[in-house]
């Protein structure tokens, strides 16, 4: 009991002395005001160097830092699309490669300026026919997109009007089928790679595609398209 009373008295004494200090602080504040007034009038006469409180500098600096952080985030966002989960798997011809739910084996490709499709058609560029077989791992499925990509990064998709023989076909789980895919490319195209996309890549979802560089034979004869056929077990 007595102890607490004495502490309380000490508290009061402490606060009283602090109060005295506060009052001293107030007098310092009045000194600030008088000094700032004189400096301010000096500033006006000189035309520069207005006296600013330290707190305002800190606020301005934080605001500038926030704007700079926002600008940096915008620049990164615009230039580096978040696609950390889009994978391009590199493969080779004449080997079995698994991408997502597809198992793929590319045999080769041939090019010519002419295609035999009921009648002989001459292309303004060149025709490329890719010979490949594929199967799935789980259920019957058809790859959503298969394109050719050249060194410059141009994409070539399936041309229209040449019937259904040169298009993608459905394949079954461990049921391999072999067929041909038709593309039409410009005559000056360089090295080509086949890109098989089980699903069309979407910026919001993970995706995996397979890219196989092609060795393309040049044919002088018109190319023909093979309809897809199921292979015996173990055949590719």
């Amino acid at each position, binding site marked *: 009991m007595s102890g607490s009373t004495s502490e309380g008295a000490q508290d009061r004494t402490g606060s009283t002395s602090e109060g005295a200090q506060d009052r001293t602080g107030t007098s310092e504040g009045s000194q600030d005001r008088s000094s700032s*007034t004189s400096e301010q009038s000096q500033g006006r006469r000189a035309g520069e160097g207005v006296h600013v409180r330290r707190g305002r500098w800190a606020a301005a600096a934080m605001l500038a830092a926030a704007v700079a952080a926002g600008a940096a985030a915008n620049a990164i966002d615009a230039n580096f699309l978040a696609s950390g989960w889009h994978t391009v798997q590199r493969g080779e011809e004449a080997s079995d490669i698994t991408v997502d739910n597809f198992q793929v084996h590319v045999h080769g490709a041939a090019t010519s300026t002419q295609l035999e499709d009921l009648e002989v058609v001459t292309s303004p560029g060149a025709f490329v026919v890719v010979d490949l077989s594929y199967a799935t791992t789980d259920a019957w499925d058809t790859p959503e997109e298969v394109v050719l990509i050249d060194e410059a990064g*141009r994409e*070539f998709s399936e041309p229209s*009007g040449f019937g259904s023989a040169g298009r993608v076909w459905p394949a079954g789980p461990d049921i391999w089928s072999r067929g041909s895919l038709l593309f039409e490319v410009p005559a000056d195209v360089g090295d080509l790679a086949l890109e098989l996309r089980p699903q069309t890549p979407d910026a919001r979802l993970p995706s995996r595609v397979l890219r196989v560089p092609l060795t393309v034979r040049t044919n002088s004869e018109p190319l023909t398209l093979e309809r897809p056929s199921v292979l015996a077990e173990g055949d590719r």
Partner: protein
Amino acid sequence: MTEPGAITARAMLAFLLATWPRRVVLSLVLLVPVVVAAVGGFGPADPPPREVEPGTVTDTGAYRVVPRSFFVSETVDAGSLEEGERWVGARVQITNQGTQPISVTFDDPTFELPADVPNDGSPNPYEVLRVDTGARLGSAQPGVTYEVALLWRTTGLQDPPAELTLTMNQSAWTEWNIEAGYHTWRATADAFYVHLPRGEAPASILEEEDE
């Protein structure tokens, strides 16, 4: 209560207007819109379309185009016509200058029929046929030069004129605003127009006559 010496808006304004040189400089700010208007900065946004000759190469952004001629026909093999409709077609040569195939009937703003030709669809072609195979073009592959017939269905042009004006819009490869990572050919304010002479429909795209 703000303290004396604090920076307020009033203090800043008083500072800026304190001397005559400062007042003169500030009044020049008011002249900025006058200068911009004098230079022509407030002009209309769309530049006038430029005329090109048939048979010359035009760069429209998405394509290098050589416009050739136009034709009117009722026997083109591209779908069925309603009573009183006929096909109006423009023969052009197109080469896709982009890096991806362009679906000419789906998302391509380049070619437009003149507004005075009655057309119940969009001003962009209803169908595009290849002259070499007679089949649909589908997608124009990058770098491949196609001779095509752009087709529209119209109830007008019973008495076809000697010339038809085709509009070709300049397009730019722009990124989508809504989703990042996708690009598309979007029409800009620039356009070209060409007076196409009247010609014949290519035989390869006409319906075969029943024997």
